[in-house]
């Protein structure tokens, strides 16, 4: 059962007015321009027990992602491929609005949107995750934890997932006398694509990117757009109630295309990737 969220309070309406007036002048509460994203920091390898991990902050929002590998059976209809699964938890220490317990619909949506973005851009070469055709394959468990929530957990989650994947060292297994065992060696995933997302907020006929939390509660509607390095749109998700004026879409797609380039560049610099 999906249930209405709390209504914008009177205060929120006043904030909305203020944000809108700033937007009209090309400004925002924290001094950014409408299409500026917040500063991004990426720390990888913090969790040594994970096969890959990244702690990413985007402004005040902090995301921790870890990857664990197991060996299991491939799906019957994809006998030559490994697989991956994405989970997300909005930890209660991140925000007064997150409750302890199993992932609510927001966590489920986050996990599924990131999953689709990774999957549809064919970022991970699943065939390289096959060990024995039809019998054994690597399964990647990609787990996202929102640690501190200052608005927009989508974009930094995607960055953190890609950073964890890009730096992951997966323990290699082999079959010896019919039994699986670790070889002691590791391999890298060699990402085939870098699909980043940009979160948009719309107030009336204006939009902004990467909303910070005060902005988020004042938006009319919000939308996530994912774009890969070949400029393909690889995911879209409207993730709030509200009307998107159809004529804004094209412009937002263009902005997403530009801004994901900015993120991609920062990402490659931070991880020393020559892409």
């Amino acid at each position, binding site marked *: *059962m*999906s*249930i*209405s969220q*709390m*209504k914008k309070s009177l205060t929120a309406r006043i904030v909305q007015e203020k944000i809108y007036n700033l937007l009209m002048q090309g400004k925002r509460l924290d001094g950014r321009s409408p299409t500026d994203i917040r500063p991004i920091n990426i720390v990888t390898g913090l969790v040594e027990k994970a096969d890959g991990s990244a702690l990413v902050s985007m402004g005040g929002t902090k995301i921790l992602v870890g990857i664990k590998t197991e060996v299991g059976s491939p799906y019957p209809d994809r006998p030559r491929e490994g697989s991956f699964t994405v989970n997300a938890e909005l930890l209660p220490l991140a925000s007064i609005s997150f409750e302890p317990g199993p992932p609510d*619909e*927001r966590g*489920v*949506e986050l*996990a*599924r949107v990131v999953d*689709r973005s990774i999957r*549809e*851009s064919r970022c991970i070469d699943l065939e390289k995750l096959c060990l024995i055709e039809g019998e054994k394959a690597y399964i990647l468990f990609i787990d996202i934890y929102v640690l501190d929530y200052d608005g927009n957990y989508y974009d930094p989650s995607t960055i953190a997932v890609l950073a964890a994947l890009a730096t992951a060292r997966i323990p290699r297994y082999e079959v010896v006398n019919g039994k699986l065992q670790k070889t002691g060696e590791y391999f890298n995933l060699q990402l085939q694509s870098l699909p980043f997302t940009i979160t948009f907020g719309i107030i009336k006929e204006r939009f902004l990117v990467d909303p910070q939390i005060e902005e988020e509660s004042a938006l009319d*509607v919000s*939308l996530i757009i994912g774009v*890969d390095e070949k*400029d*393909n*749109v*690889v*995911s*879209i*998700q*409207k*993730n*709030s*109630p*509200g*009307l*998107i*004026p*159809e*004529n804004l*879409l*094209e412009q937002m*797609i*263009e902005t997403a*295309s530009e801004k994901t380039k900015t993120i991609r560049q920062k990402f490659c610099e931070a991880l020393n990737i020559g892409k």
Partner: protein
Amino acid sequence: MKNEKLKLISEEGIRIDGRKLEELRPLRIEIGVLDKSDGSAYVELGKTKIFAAVFGPREVHPKHLALPDRAILNCRYHMTSFSVDERKPLGMTRREIELSKVIREALESVVFLEEFPRTSIDVYVEVIQADGGTRTAGLTAASLALAEAGIPMADLVAAVAVGKVEGHLVLDLCDIEDKYGEADMPIAMAPRLNSIVLLQLNGRLTKEEFRKALELAKKGIMEIYQKQRDALRKKYSEVSLMEV
């Protein structure tokens, strides 16, 4: 996830189920099919078959969940266990949880919730058979059920999926096209407001393809919107499956 062996679209541009690229599947709409709800509708789009029912506005219990300035809208998108090829386990899957959310948000975009403070409006979408496009057909049904329940809305919601299959942009994907195609983009609109109330993309499109797909979707949506309005107008005039 293109599968080279399958041939989903012929050289003449005919799809696996005989349709043209920009053709909707046969659409059947019935309104008022479930007596005990305040409003209901049944929608068949090809083999996709869906019931929707609405209860409310009614008092919220427990009371502390009520909102002082508007109604709560609750929504559950659910599939029967036998609606899909592999039996769906009982209970809500993560997919159903996500779709309940995006359907709710689409409906919240048009319902005048402020008119019914302290109440709840419950929308149930039950997928009897799933052959692609269930979230969009479910929205089409749900907005008719809301209309029958007399809930005021800024506009009806009409919805359809567009996608890319073997390089072609196509309207209203069926299951196999969704599975083996390159992109699936469900869209719901409030046509009179020229606004989008649901938008998702699962797949890869160039920016140009996105633009064209959006145009194609609008075309399909206008066709569905027209049929929704017709159905509301001549409510119950045809013999219903439910009354056989």
